[in-house]
């Protein structure tokens, strides 16, 4: 990620545009269950721009905070700033999420397969296996949200045909999979990466390429996916950021570049 030489343009990095594009996916008034890191950065950006009435709910029990930049954990006091309620896991995961009151679940990177199943438990098998942190609230978010929004750095190893372990259910084995398992079929997934936007095809349930970052080709995306995604009938190009979005992101929301420049360490710390 070298902002200056990025084909996305001289004035912003693809990573910045990824955060901005994910923010655009939130609608004003959405109740969003947010993880820390890039999801929280994008949600805060949405609140400061087109969606001031987005309500954040955070797993540690925090409801509707006005987050101070730049929190690094769901238990960071910065996520609790001016909340309306500091409650419990049961209140947010049970009484809001499982109860059906959350519109969007917003998660950071992990392993995501063709049917949008997510693995954050263990990758590889036998002697090469690598243990990851586990579900946390991710399984609960994927089980109970109507929309799942995922933001992740685009790497081939993150997009296998089938996850080694399904921590959090996407469409499981395809059409009808969620109903057969006992989950609500009222479900949609959007994955925003630094190369593209992937969405589930409403018929086949498989992830397909819905949009490309400026200057990125379909071939480049295909080279970084472990399965062969369809390409949506009308692939759009992700709109460039406005000066205001970039200024907010750089000067106010992540001024110390906790997430924006150091993304590589964010992903490697999980390995």
């Amino acid at each position: 990620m070298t902002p200056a030489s990025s084909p996305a343009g001289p004035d912003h990095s693809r990573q910045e545009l990824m955060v901005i594009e994910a923010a655009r996916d939130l609608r004003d008034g959405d109740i969003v269950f947010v993880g820390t890191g890039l999801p929280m950065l994008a949600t805060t950006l949405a609140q400061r721009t087109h969606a001031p009435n987005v309500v954040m709910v955070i797993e540690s029990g925090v409801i509707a905070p006005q987050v101070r930049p730049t929190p690094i954990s769901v238990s960071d006091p910065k996520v609790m700033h001016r909340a309306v309620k500091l409650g419990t896991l049961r209140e947010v995961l049970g009484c809001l999420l499982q109860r059906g009151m959350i519109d969007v679940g917003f998660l950071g990177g992990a392993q995501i397969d063709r049917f949008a199943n997510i693995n954050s438990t263990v990758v590889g098998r036998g002697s090469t296996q690598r243990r990851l942190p586990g579900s946390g609230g991710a399984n609960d978010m994927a089980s109970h949200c109507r929309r799942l929004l995922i933001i992740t750095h685009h790497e081939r190893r993150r997009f296998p045909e089938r996850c080694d372990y399904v921590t959090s259910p996407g469409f499981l084995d395809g059409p009808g999979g969620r109903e057969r398992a006992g989950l609500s079929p009222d479900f949609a997934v959007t994955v925003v990466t630094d190369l593209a936007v992937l969405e589930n095809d409403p018929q086949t349930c498989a992830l397909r390429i819905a949009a490309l970052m400026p200057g990125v080709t379909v071939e480049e995306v295909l080279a970084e996916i472990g399965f062969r995604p369809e390409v949506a009938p009308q692939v759009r190009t992700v709109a460039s950021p406005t000066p205001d979005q970039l200024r907010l992101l750089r000067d106010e929301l992540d001024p110390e570049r906790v997430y924006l420049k150091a993304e590589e360490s964010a992903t490697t710390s999980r390995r």
Partner: protein
Amino acid sequence: MMSETRQRTRDKVLTAAEAVARYVRPGAVLGMGGQNIGRCPMALTHEIIRQRIGRLTVVGCNLSIGMDQLVAAGLVRRTESGSGNLERFGVTFCWRRAIENGSLEVEDYSHLAMVSRFLAGEMGAPFMPTRSLLGSDLLPATGEAGKAVVIEDPWNPGQRVALVPALQPEVSIVHVQRADPSGNIIIEGFATHEPEMIRASHHVIISCEELVSTEEIRAHPERTTIPFLYVDAVVVQPYGAYPTSTYGHYDYDAAHVAAYQEAAREGSPAVDEYLRRYVWGCATFDEYLALAAGSERLIALRRAMEEML
């Protein structure tokens, strides 16, 4: 000692050494409070390590730096939780290493599934239904029992629902802001899974920032998070969650968390050296605070919290 009888005295104030010796026995199922870098019961964890109480099954929702240090000390046989990590500071490295080399049993749930298990435990119900876990590999393979089972919802034929078993830890350790000598406790700010876990536990050791009088509790009973009936021991330990934060009191110490994580990531001998220096090398938690932080640092963390709120 480990009978169902809870401590009924009015004055439950003990030192950490006394409380841990009395209520944490080898092989216990140990519930841990806190989450990630918030309000982890570090003073009580250090005391368990100092007394080398082993073969523990550690349970919680997110298990964090405290659990990882118990694993580093070789005291954990098994964990049951929704996650093991410190978010931005990485995974719980000693836990990960122990799972990968087969020396630690691990049972994975989601956070809601763990809360549901404590919820069943605190209400004296045998299990709790949830629609989490369905379809995922967190459910055991067909025929395997124990962890969770899927049944048809008796009131909605054709609808599947997962049942998770009640969890009643033998003893839980939790760090809170305020408590009185009889064990009435006040948790300020986010409370994670602690209210359910505390009420589900057979014994509870509380460490607190501040000891208040029972008169003060009785003057404002609406502020009490958990009444004394559930609590066996109260340990007064300011900064008892350090290097994690305590809401309203002090921020986390990023430098010290990172220093532990570096040692934990490296493994032996770096992490052994960390424990020797900061746990076994300190007779009390106050000694550790002086060594790891010092009074100026601790005051700065207090100021950082004040500025944030």
